[in-house]
């Protein structure tokens, strides 16, 4: 197979025009001993054969169309209305590049502006950028931004241990070449009060997740106290939040967060074994010049007609080079479009309804499991749609038994903490019917 439309006659004509006799002559600058090496790859196949081979490969997976799953832990199975795939498959969106030439990129630019506006609406903050690679990198960029806002003079970044472990790992990866000192998450059992106690004049930011990695929600009083304590020391509060929960719960902007970040995959993007996803990023307007990533702004053209452009790019690498706020030079544009379409289709009432379904189903399931002999709900109320249960046996054994019943169980917490061998984190969303929830309860009872 080839995607090259070149003909033999065309090749000869072009070579002639260039003034060389063969294509090989064009590569004279490549050191001869290394030119045209042997490349060991399988023989090419036709489209039909490749798709057959890949379908067979894909069928070795256990997928969520053929089994029920209760996994969450940073990636969420929500129903994606058909309009989303339809719109993002439009070639004009799908095969465009970065909107560098605004006059012929208004589709991408306006959709991104709408996405930014919707993220502001969800988070209760004034500015949102065009997105980051995922929730974890958005958090890392938030920490670096706080560090830079305080002119690299305050080194402490306090992370709650209740932030997704992989997010905390990414913060450490991103900050390893800087003076930032990541603290706060050495022990799992730290509450907001203990985080507050660690804030001092060397702190650039304190970051929490709400609902946290284990599903629990903090009280508004505690959240406000944390924000006040951070601000009293001139530090920033960063909140990682599940965007569907924000349709129901008070947004980070309402309780004093300076930066809100998170994974927007639940807003219309498929699970795809972990990517591509999309990190949303919002902050207060005062900090916009220190923000990383692309921003779309409204303006007018020479005729006074409204239009959209990439703006405030003096922050970015292609202008500022080594003094840029970040090296990021893309966003997850197609995912941002998917989120904008999803949020438009769900709208004000639909998104709230989805959030309530998540909440009620989680509480139903949690109470049913808690009532089973040998199982115990260990998550404190209130929680949103994820909760922890302690099992009578190692979670890995329970999950293996569930799998043979066609159920992918909860997230095995021993993966991050060997002491939690018997605990799993379960997640429900609107995709779970009561019958599916009851099936899990029954299967857990059977595998006690």
């Amino acid at each position, binding site marked *: 197979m*080839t995607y*090259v*439309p070149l003909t033999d006659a065309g*090749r000869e004509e072009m*070579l002639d025009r*260039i003034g060389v006799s063969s294509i090989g002559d*064009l590569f004279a*600058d490549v*050191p001869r001993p290394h030119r045209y*090496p042997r490349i060991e*790859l*399988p023989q090419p*196949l036709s489209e039909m054969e490749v*798709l057959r*081979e*890949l*379908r067979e490969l*894909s069928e070795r*997976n256990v*997928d969520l169309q053929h089994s029920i799953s209760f996994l969450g832990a940073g990636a969420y*199975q929500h129903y994606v209305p058909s309009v989303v795939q339809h719109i993002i498959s439009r070639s*004009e*969106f799908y095969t465009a*590049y970065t909107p560098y030439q605004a*006059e*012929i990129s*208004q*589709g991408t630019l306006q*959709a991104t*502006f709408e996405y930014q506006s919707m993220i*502001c609406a969800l988070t209760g903050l004034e*500015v949102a950028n065009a997105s980051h*690679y995922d929730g974890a990198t958005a958090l890392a960029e938030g920490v670096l931004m706080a560090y830079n806002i305080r002119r690299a003079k305050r080194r402490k970044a306090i992370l709650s241990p209740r932030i997704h472990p992989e997010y905390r790992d990414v913060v450490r990866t991103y900050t390893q*070449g800087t003076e930032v000192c990541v603290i706060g998450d050495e022990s799992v059992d730290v509450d907001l009060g203990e985080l507050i106690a660690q804030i001092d004049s060397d702190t650039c930011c304190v970051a929490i997740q709400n609902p946290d990695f284990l599903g629990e*929600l903090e009280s*508004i009083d505690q959240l406000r106290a944390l924000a006040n304590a951070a601000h009293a020391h001139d530090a920033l509060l960063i909140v990682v939040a599940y965007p569907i929960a924000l349709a*129901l719960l008070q947004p980070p902007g309402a309780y004093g967060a300076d930066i809100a970040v998170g*994974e927007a995959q639940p807003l219309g993007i498929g*699970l795809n074994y972990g*990517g591509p996803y999309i990190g949303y990023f919002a902050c207060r307007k005062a900090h916009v010049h220190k923000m990383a990533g692309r921003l779309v702004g*409204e*303006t*007018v*053209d*020479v*005729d006074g007609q409204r239009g959209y452009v990439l*703006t405030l790019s003096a922050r970015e*690498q292609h202008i*500022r080079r080594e003094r*840029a706020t970040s*090296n990021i*030079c*893309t966003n997850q544009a*197609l995912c941002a*479009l998917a989120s904008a*379409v999803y949020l438009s*289709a*769900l709208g004000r009432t639909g998104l709230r309804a989805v959030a*309530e379904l998540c909440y009620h189903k989680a509480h139903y399931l949690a109470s049913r499991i808690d009532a089973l002999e040998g199982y115990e709900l260990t998550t404190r109320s209130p929680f949103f749609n994820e909760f922890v249960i302690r099992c009578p046996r190692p979670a890995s054994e329970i999950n293996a038994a569930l799998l043979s019943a066609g159920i992918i169980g909860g997230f095995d917490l021993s993966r991050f903490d060997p002491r939690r061998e018997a605990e799993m984190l379960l997640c429900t969303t609107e995709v779970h*019917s009561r019958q599916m929830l009851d099936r899990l309860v029954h299967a857990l009872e059977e595998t006690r």
Partner: protein
Amino acid sequence: MKGPEPLIFELSRPGRRGSSVPSLDVPEAELPAELLRDDLPLPEVAEVDVVRHYVRLSQLNHAVDVGFYPLGSCTMKYNPKMNDAAAQLPGFAHTHPCQPDETVQGSLELMYRLQEALKALSGFDGISLQPSAGAHGEFAGMLVVRAHHLANDDQGRNVVLIPDSAHGTNPASTAMCGYETLEVRSDERGNVDLGDLARHCSERVAGMMLTNPNTLGLFDEHVLEIADMVHGCGGLLYGDGANFNAIMGIVKPADLGFDVMHFNLHKTFSTPHGGGGPGSGPVGVTERLAEFLPGPVVGREGTRYVLHCPPRSIGRMKAFAGNFAVLVRAYAYIRTLGATGLREASEVAVLNANYLRTELQLSYPIAVDRICMHEFVLAGPPANADEIHTMDIAKRLMDLGHSHPPTVYFPLIVPEAMMIEPTETESKETLDQFARDMRQIAEEACTEPELLKTAPHSTPVRRLDEVRAARHPILRYEPEDPPAAI
């Protein structure tokens, strides 16, 4: 249908709904009253509103499925549709990243095969598919360089050498690793200036980031000497793989002395750009650096595939394993073309660029007059068109309607630069049409300069006021503000 499209918020009417949600089939739990929000200012629109609005927006975009897109350094090749069919196979699309390895053996095998294919093409010994984009791969790669020196207790290396022709991401990625950047000059043939490089080589050098072919579209004539010089002072050579589309099957970067390189799967391996992302930027390294790669990577234990973290890994670059759906597309492309097809792609990318260069050199000055690789750089408007700038040419191209403009004002070392990358998937007829358009514009630049300076005339909006956008930023819809002009 022309004219401005309202914002989706402006189409909102109270009570309208664009989707249906299942009814509650479990008992209601009490909601935590003090935590609830009272307002959610999202639009209320019908499904038909959503579809018409976004379809109309889509029609305001140029795209590679619509026409020629010769953006230099971006490799806007055609995106084969079967790749999407592969990524949408239910077994791939509907798997959760936290599923146990034994339930995702198909996904892991695909990732393993892609790692092996990238090794075969590049000559590297270790690959991590974690990074989400080219710049993300650069950051990962330079952290690997840093980890290598720290592991050798070589703390004094705090400088990275970067040619003046480099992408802006190179110095920015370097700075994120805590390194200082030192710029190395280019010579008059567009190569790294060896004398300048020699002056900068010292025991302070952690490494050099080199794009080869470089952003002038030229293969550095002294690449082996450069590698020797950087290695000679104890540094590592990083390859910016943005231009890998020129050399697939032609030369392996590891054979030239590169120690680390990132790949842009969304450029070289044909995955769609989606309006600026998502991409994928795997990083490849030589054997001695493999232990530092970002994890997880996919390994094989007998017939089983497993995710594991390299022993002295720099850590994770993102949550979960990688941009998997992009990886599927890239693998499908490699599997379809094989070694011969990939080599042909690079050969024709270079042939197309040289043909277009030859045609355009008749009307425009060229930055460096040499055989180019997959792209070339023009040094601005025709000599006798004094009033005209590169931006005017770019805007006028939009009026002619056949093509997206080239990359403009980059690389920075060429004033008024126009960087043109046709890619291998364009026919001679398309290249000829572009050459005709550019010739016409060259003539207009002398005879009717106003036509260029006021271009574009036929696009959905005309030149936009970027200064106003930056001075008075409007970054979201706010209902209390009257729309600027509609």
